[in-house]
């Protein structure tokens, strides 16, 4: 079972290395969106500090939607999804492998880039640290929840828009607690409560999302 998880994870990472556009599309989108706000709003440091957590988190949320549509669509088109469905392994484990790879490819680079981008908003070191931790906890949840949407819209025309419509509302709690953690840290309230909530959301998503995704895949692939 664990071998199958690793096999899928390794396969998707190799594929990502051979076709790097996915990684860079997501990352550049995130960098550009986050950088546009200071340019558009102007160099008023007080305003920038105020909007920073929200802007970074919304950008991360939208960026993580970009590659979602392709999460299962490529496997569906070339027939490897059928093999996964018929493999003598729990489908949810294979799904988890795919989601892990998806997060490593699209989520992790964005998390690592965030503190650098946060400098444009004059965030303190302490706030940058909280931003990093909140993204580190929150983006896996975005990938996990997004996978459900990607599986549900598999094989539909115009699936991309539909994924966003399905998934974005479900991601609101992650957004609230993620951005909230940074705001709380900046205002001196303490970020721990928000981070605990984020952690709880990730655990819940880790438990339920692979099951929901595999059920959705079975229906979509018929």
């Amino acid at each position, binding site marked *: 079972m664990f*071998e199958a998880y690793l*096999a899928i994870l390794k396969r998707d990472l*190799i594929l990502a290395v051979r*076709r790097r556009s996915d990684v860079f599309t997501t990352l550049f989108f995130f960098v550009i969106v986050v950088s546009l706000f200071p340019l558009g709003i102007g160099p008023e440091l007080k305003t920038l500090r105020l909007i920073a957590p929200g802007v970074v988190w919304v950008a991360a949320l939208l960026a993580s939607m970009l590659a979602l549509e392709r999460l299962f669509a490529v496997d569906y088109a070339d*027939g490897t999804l*059928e093999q996964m469905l018929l493999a*003598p392994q729990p489908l949810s484990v294979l799904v988890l492998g795919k989601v892990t790879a998806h997060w490593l490819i699209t989520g992790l680079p964005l998390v690592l880039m965030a503190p650098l981008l946060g400098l444009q908003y004059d965030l303190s070191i302490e706030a940058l640290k909280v931003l990093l931790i909140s993204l580190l906890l929150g983006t896996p949840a975005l990938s996990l929840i997004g996978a459900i949407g990607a599986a549900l819209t598999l094989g539909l025309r115009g699936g991309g828009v539909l994924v966003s419509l399905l998934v974005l509302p479900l991601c609101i709690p992650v957004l609230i607690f993620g951005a909230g953690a940074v705001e709380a840290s900046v205002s001196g309230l303490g970020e721990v409560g928000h981070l605990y909530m984020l952690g709880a959301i990730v655990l819940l998503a880790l438990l339920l999302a692979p099951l929901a995704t595999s059920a959705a895949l079975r229906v979509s692939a*018929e």
Partner: protein
Amino acid sequence: MLQVVDLECVRGDRRLFSELSFELLPGELLHLYGHNGSGKTTLMRAICGLIQPTAGEVLWNGESSRKLAEDFTQEVIYVGHKNGIKDDLSGIENLRISCALDGCPISEQQAWDALEEIGLRGQEDLPTQVLSQGQKRRVGLSRLLVHKARLWILDEPFTALDKAAVGFLQSVIRRHIDQGGMVILTTHQEVTLTEGQVKRLQLGWKEEGHV
């Protein structure tokens, strides 16, 4: 032993077949035939569990294949219209990954041997996107050489293959049958496998299929 009991499949609002029953014993080959759109692919996908039949069930050694779940899929290998290979990966990588997924990991050497046997010598480590249609098909079919599944479900396995490869695949299928395996097959090509001692199932003439 595979038993299909009163199977019914509806696609859209068309009933493709209903009350379809047959059984397949070790060492038997079932040749499905029928005109385009008569439900051959649907039947195969329903047997291996990709499609939920509207009614009826598939039994493996007397137990429902749905209940057996992974114990059943372990015994089945399905080759459909799509080759199930990744364009960016080489033949070796494709074969090894699909074997790892199927729960029977193979060594790199075994993968090289299998691909050489299926006639891809010299192309084993090229990304499959540079291969021809027939060569891709061969990569997809190479799973049959290393897999230990007892039931093979092959949907049009001979398409895109040249004469030599068709001959080779027939010998592989023949060997599997002789070793007590089971094969369900569709093909529009006349091959020696579909003559003589095989079960035949015609779909699409009447409402009911029959052996």
